[in-house]
């Protein structure tokens, strides 16, 4: 396959970036999108051009490191798939593909297509955990958890924290990420004690990072490589209102 790439190039956070055009020639349709970029970068390096910087790690769709907004859609056109699992056969020979970084004030560009997603880490630090006394590992079956709770908790826990929800949101809101983390712990018995304080702290941390506000358009759910449901946002809103119940009423 031969493709035309329009790629966002930006030296660092302080410099202005712009779209540059590159040719991707002799691309094997069985390559992943990232492998295609590796091939393009090899060519650029040989010609003395600075290779395109992009994030990747496991390349098997579970680490949440890869990103890229491909033709306006985070992780590209394939639903429920991270960029590393997106194959070039999803494109047609001769296509022009536009590649941009996640766009959000809270995710500043580090270089080219690499963004700083540490805002998510700070949200987790604010309350995305369960406090336990250290010691021996507890007996695994000591706390029985019903399937009706374990299943949705696992669905929420599938979030890999890639930030596609923010990138896809018309308002760069982080509600789906925060909701997945809040719901995951709020559903399990271990998360009950800190439930109210957790949702308050995590929403406050999210707002501090200057993510936008949810307008219930559900672009996040459609872009999520793990197909996390927006019903968790409803769940988080409910937890938040419950946490402030005493103050409101």
């Amino acid at each position: 396959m031969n493709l035309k790439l329009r790629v966002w190039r930006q030296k660092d956070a302080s410099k202005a970036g712009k779209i540059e055009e590159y040719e991707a020639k002799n691309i094997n349709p069985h390559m992943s999108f990232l492998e295609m970029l590796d091939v393009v970068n090899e060519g650029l390096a040989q010609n003395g051009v600075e290779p395109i910087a992009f994030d990747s790690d496991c390349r098997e769709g579970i680490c949440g490191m890869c990103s890229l907004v491909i033709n306006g859609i985070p992780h590209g056109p394939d639903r429920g798939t991270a960029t590393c699992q997106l194959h070039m056969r999803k494109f047609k020979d001769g296509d022009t593909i536009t590649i941009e970084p996640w766009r959000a004030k809270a995710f500043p560009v580090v270089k080219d297509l690499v963004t700083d997603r540490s805002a998510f880490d700070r949200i987790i630090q604010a309350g995305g955990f369960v406090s336990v006394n250290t010691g021996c590992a507890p007996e695994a079956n000591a706390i029985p958890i019903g399937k009706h709770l374990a299943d949705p908790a696992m669905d929420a826990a599938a979030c890999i924290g890639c930030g596609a929800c923010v990138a896809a949101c018309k308002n760069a809101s982080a509600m789906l990420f925060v909701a997945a983390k809040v719901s995951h712990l709020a559903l399990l018995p271990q998360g009950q004690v800190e439930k109210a304080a957790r949702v308050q702290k995590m929403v406050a941390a999210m707002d501090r990072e200057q993510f936008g506000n949810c307008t219930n358009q559900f672009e996040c759910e459609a872009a999520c490589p793990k197909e996390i449901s927006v019903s968790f946002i409803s769940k988080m809103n409910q937890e938040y209102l419950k946490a402030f119940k005493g103050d409101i009423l």
Partner: protein
Amino acid sequence: MSNFLKSSVGRKSVMAVTGLLLFGFVIIHMIGNLQLFLGQDALNDYAKHLVEMPLLLWPARVVLLAILVTHIFVSMSLAKENRVARPVRYTQGATIQASYASRTMVMSGIIIFLFIVYHLLHFTFGKIQPQFYDQLDAEGRKDVYGMIVYGFQNIYVSGAYVTAMAVLCFHLSHGLQSLFQSLGLRSNALAPLLKKMAVGLSLFIFIGNTSIPLSILLGFVRMPGVGR
């Protein structure tokens, strides 16, 4: 409480509650208006009763205005933050599943606000078409029926009302389902039902309210004793 009202989630719940209350008013207002079809006597009688209850009417007006102002100001603060949250926009944007109505809520909201101003100037303050405003009926009551019938016989005035109702219907089709999500009441099981309910109620409002100017324009409703 102040933390709650400063937070994104808290303000979204304020949008949901004020939106729901405003929708409640739209329903009540429509039921009141539809008494036009019961004839001049019934409508003018209803209007007379309303203004004869100032202790009910004025607090209702003040509360309603406060709800509307809250809805507008909170939406402005949220929308402003949303713009700030993405300083550099995508050179090639895309929409995966967001509805057109959901993407134009601010615009439809502004149009509805302008319509409210126009509507108040028209029927509440009598600044538009003042010739129909201060007429009395045979029994000496304010002739609200005549004001509406003569008013809507003007195709431009009717057209403005029908257009505004289409925009309102559009705004409600997103708002009425969105509010359940903001209040934490939506689940995947309920989602299809909420969507149908929102679209159904929006159409109900559109058909109910536009039936008034349309039946007047088409001559189904006219002044008593006037032939076609």
